[in-house]
């Protein structure tokens, strides 16, 4: 089945041009982020004699208001954005899957408690929650990851719970319970593999959402702290120079949009492969 699904995935990618470019774009971004690790210059080195330079052969994207090379800043910013996106996705997947499977499998009061908790988390606008919590805890990249993960697990929990509820009625799960397999073992060995396609699909969307949230937080000044940059904080810094250096706002903005669209595109392909009922590309071309 796994081989068959991989084949389907390849076929879908080759046929769907949007998805193909998304994949190429993401691979490009990820490779650039990794390769920049070999760059031995200091990305935060200030050069006051060369502030707000226009794009040139030496500085492709020009320099920022402190004379730092903007291309290098963008790539380092992308590194932070992607890292935060992936780690926050993992956090929310782990919380969401655990909560969803427990709620669906145990049912009753545990189910009510977890799902009401998720309702409460969903009811309060995330930007308020994220702002309050990030003001309370120590600033840093991992607290951002934690904060984003803590406030984005509800959707995944709901999806996983729904699937667990139907799986619970399957004979093989009831049989496992009948012969005395422990609930923990049933969840680990029977339920998790079965909900994996759902989780993978949700994960791609979760990465996109996390990058978006991180950018918004950094734009508001509660995200990564200077001199560290992310695409969101670069966008915020660019505000001051909108009149004379318009490209400084456009570049990180376009990169955020492209990255998010790419992750969402891939998510659609994953969904189409995992559930052949819904075809990829129908919702967003």
């Amino acid at each position: 089945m796994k081989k068959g699904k991989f084949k389907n995935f390849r076929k879908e990618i080759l046929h769907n041009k949007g998805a193909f470019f998304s994949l190429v774009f993401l691979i490009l971004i990820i490779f650039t982020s990794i390769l920049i690790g070999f760059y031995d210059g200091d990305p935060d080195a200030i050069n006051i004699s060369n502030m707000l330079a226009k794009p040139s052969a030496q500085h492709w994207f020009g320099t920022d208001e402190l004379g730092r090379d903007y291309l290098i800043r963008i790539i380092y910013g992308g590194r932070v954005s992607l890292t935060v996106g992936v780690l926050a996705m993992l956090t929310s997947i782990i919380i969401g899957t655990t909560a969803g499977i427990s709620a669906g499998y145990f049912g009753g009061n545990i189910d009510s408690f977890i799902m009401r908790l998720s309702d409460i988390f969903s009811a309060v606008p995330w930007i308020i929650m994220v702002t309050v919590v990030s003001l309370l805890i120590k600033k840093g990249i991992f607290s951002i990851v934690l904060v984003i993960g803590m406030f984005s697990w509800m959707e995944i929990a709901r999806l996983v719970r729904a699937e667990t509820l139907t799986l619970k009625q399957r004979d093989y799960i009831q049989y496992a319970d009948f012969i005395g397999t422990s609930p923990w073992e049933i969840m680990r060995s029977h339920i998790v593999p079965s909900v994996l396609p759902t989780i993978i699909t949700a994960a791609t969307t979760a990465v996109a959402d996390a990058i978006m949230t991180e950018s918004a937080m950094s734009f508001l000044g509660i995200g990564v702290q200077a001199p560290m940059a992310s695409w969101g904080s670069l966008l915020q810094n660019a505000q001051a120079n909108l009149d004379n250096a318009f490209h400084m706002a456009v570049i990180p903005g376009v990169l955020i949009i492209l990255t998010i669209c790419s992750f969402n595109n891939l998510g659609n392909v994953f969904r189409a492969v995992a559930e052949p009922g819904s075809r990829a590309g129908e919702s967003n071309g």
Partner: protein
Amino acid sequence: MKDDVLISVKNLKKYFPVRRGILKEKKYIKAVDGVCIDIHKGETFGLVGESGCGKSTLGKCIIRMYDITSGEIYFKNKEIGKLKSSEIKSSRNNSMQIVFQDPYSALDPSWTVAKILSEPLIQKGASNKECMERGKYLLNKVGMTEMDMERRPYEFSGGQRQRIGIARALMSNPEFVVCDEPISALDVSVQAQVINLLKDLQEEFGLTYLFASHDLSIVRYMSDWIGVMYSGKIVESGYSDKVYKNPLHPYTKILLDAIPSIYSEKRKKDITISPENLDNFSNVYEGCPFAYSCEYAKEHCKEGKPLLQEVQSGHFVACFHY
């Protein structure tokens, strides 16, 4: 005769609650309502009845896959009906097993056959090697090869999956196996193979079966003793031949008449089931559950519940006419 009773069920009841709002009265579906049966060692107890009459529920209650509402279940003269589910799991030791109706839902699609077969034994603390050996042995017994150990359920047909399900049930060397309509999801040619396989295994391992099905001819072929179920109750039971040759309960007569025959005149009339019957699980009225569809029904049939009584030796019926 009494000595070789493996399973004895006394007045077993299983009600499923139907929630209809918080303030409203709690209602129940009486899936199994006061069933008494004895199953003898090495024999097959055939359970027939229409869809939804409680056959599967009865089977799953006996092996304590479900908790029961009330009643007693004796397995080898030991009461197991009132044990808590944690106690039953440790004490059962998997001497009771089940073969499911739907071979597509009975096996985890992402597991290999080796892992599926090992599952019941691993729980008993067997080593991986023991599991593999017994798995290969039983896979051969059910007509498959060792090569199939590393394959996954989606690579097999329905009949092959059902064989894997049977092999899994036999892994823990059980004494009693509930066959919960094991053939109704299979096509006719495969049905025959699976039925013969079950018979052969019964002889070889000395198994006792509870064989539930709505296919009357197969139940007759399989069973030594038959129970006819209607609306959660046993309405007639007896030696297989006696029930088939001389059905006493009006419902059994209709059921046997409904077997399709190539001789059209043999089929006497169309069966009419009155609309009251659709609601018979909530048991809104007292009396014989079949009274509203029965052509012989008299007034008193709708008032009192008939009890199962022996009208001939080895032939019981629950009807006021006998």
